[in-house]
């Protein structure tokens, strides 16, 4: 393995090692799947930030002053995370970001469900408020967080490359 000037960045070292392996198709497949989901979700939200802000407000968690900035930033953050997953050197950061996002979504949905709220979570654009759909999305977030954690942990457990 060639040690470049930026080889001190641990995430790069890990992902370079991964790309040199015989091919971890599972990680690649999960990465592509997560990237597709988050890029799609981001573009669905970015069309109508007002609608997304209404969805966020429905959860009753964020203070009013943070709702609109969050509605403006989150779609771009999701799209960026999706693209980070597509490129091996940045996959690790993208995976961590998506894991954190999924945990946050899970907590918000669970909180709303426990409070008896019936909402449209706005996860994939606007839709009709539905509790069964909220439970499905709760489960989906578990899957997404699991996939992202898998990618992140796999990339951190790669054996270090010995310098020449």
């Amino acid at each position, binding site marked *: 393995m060639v040690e470049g000037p930026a080889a001190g960045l641990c995430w790069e070292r890990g992902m370079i090692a991964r790309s040199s392996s015989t091919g971890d198709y599972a990680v690649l497949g999960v990465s592509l799947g997560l990237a597709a989901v988050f890029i799609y979700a981001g573009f669905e939200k970015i069309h109508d930030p007002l609608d997304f802000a209404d969805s966020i407000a429905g959860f009753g968690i964020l203070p009013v002053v943070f709702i609109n900035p969050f509605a403006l930033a989150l779609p771009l*953050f999701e799209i960026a995370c999706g693209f980070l997953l597509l490129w091996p050197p940045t996959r690790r950061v993208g995976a961590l970001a998506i894991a954190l996002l999924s945990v946050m979504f899970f907590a918000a949905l669970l909180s709303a469900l426990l409070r008896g709220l019936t909402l449209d979570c706005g996860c994939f654009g606007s839709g009709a408020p539905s509790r069964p759909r909220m439970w499905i999305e709760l489960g989906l977030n578990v899957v997404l967080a699991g996939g992202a954690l898998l990618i992140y942990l796999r990339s951190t457990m790669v054996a270090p490359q010995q310098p020449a």
Partner: protein
Amino acid sequence: MSSVVSLNRLEPGLTGQSSKPIWCVLRDFACVALLAMASLAAGVVMNLLSDRPLPIVYQTTEQRFDADLTTLVTALPFKIAPAATVGLGEFHSAVESKSALILDARPSVFFEQGHVPGALNLARDAFARDYRQLAPLLKSATDKAIIVYCAGGDCHDSRLVANALMSLGFSNVRVFTGGWEEWSKARLPVSAGSGG
């Protein structure tokens, strides 16, 4: 060989992947935080460049509706679309026969002191609040004409309210330009209190 590699040789536990260096994880979190801040900055810029930018502070659907309604009645008088007008005779007969919905556009304090019998208070200065209360009634009586009046003379409240109602889809809206001044001078019947 780069200085980083030298560091690896000296302190393998610091940079080696197999030892799960905490600083690597912290660096990843820092990268995520930077990404979040960059997303926020990009989102704010995109918002500023959009046709309908979001305000900094979120407004509920009701607040936005109120703001829209309030905007409807803050047009400058010279920009008001000319609503059809009625004179005292026609207005009086509409009140007598109850063939039209009569709306008083004056502030509620004046409405309570005295108003045309059967009139409803749709005050210009509290248009959003009053409209929300009266909307079901107004929408259920679309077959009736709506006649709006205010103090009379130079008052613009009746025209502003009529204009706002037309913007909201009410087509048969007219203004009694003589207003309360002409009605009361003619010594016609009056009602008092908050009810019609």
